[in-house]
C-alpha cells in the first residue's frame, strides 16, 4: 500500500512541522538560556538548541507520547551540551597554542551573561553538579524529572544538587 504509506508519511511530516513551530515559539528562548547555563561557551548555545529541534523533528514519527515533546527536547539539549563540552575538552587538549583573544561579535547580551558571578561560579562546578543545579533551580524540574534527563537516580540528583548548592554558596560568598 504505497499510497497510504505516503499519505501517512506526509501527515506525520505536516504534524512535525506544526509541532516544531509551536515548540519554537513557546520554548526556544528558555532552552537557549538553559543551554547557556550548561555550556562553557555561550556562543554555542543557540547552535545546540537548534540541533535539538532538528533531531526532535526527525524523530517525531517515533515519538510515543507527543505531550512529552518538551521533555524530549530538554533531554536532547542536555545530551548535546554534554557532547559539546566533551568535544571542547578534546579540542583544548590538542590545541597547539592558545589563541589570542579576539573581539567577540556577540558583545552585549552574551558578555553580560559571561560576567555574571553566578555563571562564573557555575562553570567551576563538576558537570553533573552543574546539570543538577541548573535543572532543579533554573528549569524548575522535580528531582525525578531531573534524574530522568540526567540518566541517573533520584538519590544521585539529590546528592549532586546538595553538593552543587554548597559549592556555589562558598564561591558566591567569596565574591561578595
Amino acid at each position, binding site marked *: 500500500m504505497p499510497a497510504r504509506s505516503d499519505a501517512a508519511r506526509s501527515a506525520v511530516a505536516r504534524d512535525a512541522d506544526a509541532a*516544531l513551530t509551536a515548540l519554537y515559539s513557546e520554548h526556544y528562548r528558555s532552552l537557549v538560556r538553559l543551554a547557556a547555563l550548561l555550556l562553557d561557551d555561550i556562543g554555542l548555545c543557540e547552535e545546540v538548541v537548534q540541533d535539538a529541534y532538528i533531531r526532535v523533528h526527525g524523530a517525531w514519527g517515533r515519538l510515543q507520547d507527543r505531550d512529552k515533546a518538551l521533555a524530549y527536547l530538554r533531554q536532547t539539549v542536555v545530551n548535546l551540551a554534554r557532547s559539546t563540552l566533551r568535544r571542547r575538552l578534546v579540542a583544548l587538549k590538542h590545541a597547539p597554542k592558545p589563541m589570542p583573544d579576539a573581539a567577540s561579535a556577540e558583545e552585549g547580551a*552574551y558578555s553580560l*551573561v559571561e560576567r*555574571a558571578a553566578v555563571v562564573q561560579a557555575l562553570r567551576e562546578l563538576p558537570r553533573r553538579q552543574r546539570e543538577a543545579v541548573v535543572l532543579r533551580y*533554573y528549569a524548575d524540574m522535580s528531582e525525578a524529572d531531573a534524574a530522568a534527563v540526567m540518566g541517573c537516580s533520584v538519590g544521585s540528583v539529590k546528592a549532586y544538587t546538595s553538593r552543587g548548592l554548597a559549592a556555589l554558596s562558598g564561591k558566591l560568598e567569596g565574591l561578595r
Partner: protein
Amino acid sequence: MNSGLEPEELTRLLRAAVEPIRASPDALHQIRAGVERRRWWRMPLMATGGVVMAALIALAFVAVRPQSSSEQVVEPAGPPLVSSMVEPTAGPSAGPSVGGGGSGGGTRPSGGTRPQHTTTPPPTTSSTPRTGTTPSSPVASATTGQGGSGSLSLPSPAHRPALANDVDGDGTADTVRLNGTKVEVVFSRGGKAGSVDLPNLQLPTVHAVVDANGDGFAEVLVRTSSRDNIDEYALLRYAAGGVLSQALPVGGANLRLSAGVRDDSAFGFQCDGSGLRLISGTSSDGISYQTVTTAVQITSDGLVAGQVTQEMVTGSSVGTVFAPGCGTFSALS
C-alpha cells in the same frame, strides 16, 4: 540546608543572569533549513542502505544455499592406459580378464610361452567377473551411492601408517561399535561419533580396522553379508568434517569388495599399506584360477581403479588369495 545560598535566591540569580539572552531573529529559519538538509541527506542514505541490505541478503542466500546434486558436474576420469600382463595364447580366457562377462569362460590358458605387455584400459564396469547368482543387494551396498566426502581437506595424521584402531588419525585409538544396522565410530578427535547406515547388514558380523593405504587414517572394513560362500564387505573411512563415510567406487565402476570361493568363481582382496587390491578369479576345474587383480586407490572421492594384472593361481595359494587379506577381523557388536 545551606545557610549561605537559598534555592529561591539561586533561582533568581540564575534567571537574572541569563535574562539578557535573546533568540536570534533567524533561528526558526535556520532550524527549518536544518530539517530540510537532514531530509535530503536521509533519502539517499536510506536508498543506499536498502541496496546494501538487499545485496547482503542475496550474498547470504548464495552462501548458504545447499547445492543440489543435479548441479554438481561429475566428470568421469578418462581411463588411463595401464600395462598388464596378458598371455598371448590365452584364447577364450582372455575375454573375462579385462572386460568380458567371464561367468562361464574360465578356461585355463593353454601353454603360453612368453608373457607380453599389452596396453589395456582399466576396468570400469566389469573388471571383476560376476555370476548370475550373486546376490545383488550386498553388491549394491558396496558399489552404489555416493563416494567420498568431497574436496574438504583432512587434518594432518599423527602417524603414517595409522596406529591401531586410529580411524581419525590423531594417534589415539577410536571405538568401533554397532547400533542396529549402523556402524558407529567414536572419534577421539573432538569426542564425536560418526556413523554409516548399512541397511543390508547381516548380523552377526565382523570388522577389521586397518590403514589400508598408509595415509595415517585407518579404514574400517565391515562384512555386510555372507551368502553362498561369498562374503561382501563395506569400507568405511574418516572423511573431512569429522564424519564417517563409506568409500564407494568413483564413476560407477564395478569394484567389488568380496571374498570367498563359489563354484568356478572366486573373490578376494588384500591391502599392504599402499592401497587395496581386489582379486577375482575364474576356474574351469576348481583347482586353478585365472585371476584379475585390480589395484584400487582410496581417495577422498572414493575408490579409484588403477592398474590391472592377471596371473594364474593354483593349489594351496587359492585359499590365501581369495580371502579377506586386510587386517585382522573380529566380531563387531
